[in-house]
């Protein structure tokens, strides 16, 4: 588990540096970042704010969802009168490059299409398959009966803590440091019977966490914003299939307000185990 985290960091670090180096040798590249088809950000250059990356990835949802209709995506090119965006599919990852209008695309494509796959291959040899660590596990039926949801209407108070106050009561639930931290995109969760203290995440991710924690049931997660605000809340699997497998966390408005975060933003989520 810890090894996976380390490997992901290594991947991210190596790819981020590669993107920055590519920008150094191709100054016409204004922005570049990489993401997986489930929307997870793998690496981004220093110039591109994370919010922008999340918004852009979000905008590709519809295209990626229907990609099968055209045999899967090989690339996307957007031509504007001031610049150009290229999205290339490499080893199941998408590389996005934003270039000026005058950029020499042959040169840029040559550099990116040689360097990135080489780095990926190299990383694959050094640390095999960390990027697949979030791949779906065998399906486990996680649908919850509506009666159960009704019972949950009783809200429990939030246990909000600031990151600067990491001290925790040893008597209470403890975080297993070796459990993975996942970056997820926030999606609204609303409705009359929706408990305001519960977030919903992919059932596959929950199963994966449960497996990693030695088959312990994950009932709570700790969400941490990039500003360092943390909040522990209950967790249930996503029921709506259209949100599955996209790296999404569905979050009630109250939790979003507490964390001062909103739909489309990225948040770190880790499981809390007893």
């Amino acid at each position: 588990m810890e090894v996976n985290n380390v490997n992901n960091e290594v991947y991210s670090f190596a790819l981020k540096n590669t993107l920055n180096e590519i920008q150094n040798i191709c100054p016409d590249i204004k922005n570049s970042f990489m993401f997986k088809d489930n929307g997870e950000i793998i690496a981004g250059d220093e110039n591109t704010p994370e919010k922008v990356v999340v918004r852009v990835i979000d905008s590709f949802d519809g295209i990626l969802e229907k990609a099968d209709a055209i045999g899967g995506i090989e690339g996307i090119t957007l031509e504007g009168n001031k610049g150009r965006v290229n999205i290339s599919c490499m080893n199941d990852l998408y590389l996005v490059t934003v270039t000026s209008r005058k950029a020499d695309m042959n040169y840029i494509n040559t550099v990116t299409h040689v360097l990135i796959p080489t780095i990926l291959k190299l990383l694959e040899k050094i640390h095999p398959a960390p990027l697949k660590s979030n791949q779906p596990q065998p399906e486990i039926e996680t649908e919850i009966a509506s009666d159960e949801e009704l019972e949950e209407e009783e809200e429990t108070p939030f246990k909000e803590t600031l990151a600067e106050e990491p001290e925790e009561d040893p008597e209470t639930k403890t975080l297993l440091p070796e459990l993975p931290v996942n970056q997820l995109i926030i999606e609204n969760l609303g409705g009359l019977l929706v408990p305001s203290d519960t977030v919903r995440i992919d059932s596959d991710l929950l199963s994966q966490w449960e497996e990693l924690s030695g088959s312990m049931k994950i009932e709570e997660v700790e969400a941490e914003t990039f500003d360092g605000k943390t909040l522990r809340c209950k967790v249930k699997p996503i029921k709506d299939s259209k949100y599955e497998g996209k790296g999404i966390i569905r979050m009630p408005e109250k939790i979003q307000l507490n964390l001062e975060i909103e739909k489309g933003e990225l948040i770190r989520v880790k499981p809390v185990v007893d």
Partner: protein
Amino acid sequence: MGKKKKIVQEVTVMTEPLAVEESSVDDLRGCLLEIKEYDGVIGYILRNSTSAAIDLKDPTKVIDYAILSSSSLDASEVLSKDFNLGTVKSIIVDGKDVKMLSLTVSENRISVFMDKKASCEKILKKLHSL
């Protein structure tokens, strides 16, 4: 050929066509019918706020292609705004089997679907000349 005409008619019935169609839309439709005869082109989708026309060789793909078309044009707006790309001239989605060229002409959102190896250049030139 008979099949193609049927699809166009069905879609037109579902939407509410203008009583007097603008000549520019007629021009576009005429242009797209010509483009449809180009080598490798397998169909097109033309939409504006009041009407839509879909002409595809494979009618089973209509929904998927329509979603792809609107998603790509929506994505192009987001990208253009976030990265300050100015007016979007075109967005090309290269699939392993099929290629889609999308663009906006006036208020009309157009997507042309073609074989992977077909060229977009001639189509773009034709559409931008309107």
